[in-house]
């Protein structure tokens, strides 16, 4: 029974999560849409400079904008 309740709780959280009202409305995202807020404004340049670092440093990965941008549209 506990398992079922837990499952139902998870499902309800998930379903209600999908209906979360965005606390920053689309029309309030004008500043976030400005290019100075882009994590990766010039992909050709950022790919090059990461290449410079990864060739000379032991660390690698998680350098990208794989998480996407501001979702401003």
């Amino acid at each position: 029974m506990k398992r079922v309740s837990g499952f139902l709780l998870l499902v309800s959280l998930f379903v209600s999560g999908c209906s979360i009202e965005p606390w920053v409305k689309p029309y309030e995202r004008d500043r976030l849409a400005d290019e100075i807020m882009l994590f990766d404004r010039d992909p050709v340049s950022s790919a090059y400079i990461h290449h410079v670092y990864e060739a000379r440093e032991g660390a690698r990965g998680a350098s990208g904008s794989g998480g996407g941008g501001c979702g401003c549209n």
Partner: protein
Amino acid sequence: MTAQHLVAARLSFVLLALLAAPASAGVLPDDRADILYHYYDGGGVTIEGPSYLVRKSIGEQFSFYGNYYVDTVSSASIDVVTTASPYEEERTEQSVGVDFLNGDTIMSLSVTQSEENDYSAQSVNFSIAQEIFGGLTTVTLGYGNGSDEVGRNGDDTFSDTVERQAYRLGLSQILTRNMLMSMNLEVITDEGFLNNPYRSVRYQDGFGFSYQQEVYPRTRTSTAAALRTRYYLPYRASVHLGYRYFTDDWEIEAHTAEVGYAHPFGPLSVDLKYRYYTQTAADFYSDLFPFENAQNFLARDKELSTFQSQTIRLGLTYDFLEGGWSFLERGTVNFFYDHILFTYDDFRDLDIGGPTGAEPLYELEADVIQLFLSFWF
């Protein structure tokens, strides 16, 4: 092949995932073309060449891109002057990719091929990005697979391979009207010939020191986690902060921190950045081993030593086609200058010389220049 170049060839598949990364899950990247010239000068190594990137959407759901990149290397680095001869070589890299937009989801696929006279690498990257919570959050999952072939100039009998996989998780989040945040996690595994076939380690031989070939483990697994934020200031400018933690099973642990500022003045934009990086050495690294074959794995690669690097950047972008012209919507000319200082804690400068094991510690200053034109259409 320089150490830098070898690693560069191997990691290109990770970095080219950057080119494919969509700006947002609900919208395709802009149509644009970039023509970039890059120049690196540091530690006796110069590397220069072009990078061309064209991205064009077809219909409302597909965006295609192609990238052609060249490194022309002229090397008399500290590794080379102590154990080998200066040389020149070239590496070329091509990649093509496509992004597919479906509702709030973008799927991206890219393939990359890199060639030089003693190394070739192929890779495939795939990612899926999904916007949720009314566009406040974007979640991205990615996977990359790479296969390399390693050769050794002057030795036709030598041939080996590297197989590589990368797993990526990304999350970007709108926090307030003025603030964005992104988190990235990436796990990379390698299996195969991971050292440089030309490089040696040194050991004490009773009179001074001698050299023997380096030996690395044939596997490596690393994890990196990064957190970045951008904040829009009360006037039109932004600050950004970033931190990345890195660890791997070679016992390298690294921290990267950066802070930057972007400020447009009419058609001119100024970017300033400071970056600090520090790492501990791999557990099989030593500047000077006590005797020959002192342990089963041996490295004297300065990229695996304990060191710090610091970078300052000045970037200038000038919008010279603000109102557009013909089919072009916009054009910019960009100049980015990075000055990097590497200071090594346990890698000694054998070129200067001194008593064995007490030579001065090595330092390296590098100038990195990017000059590029970008057009939107």
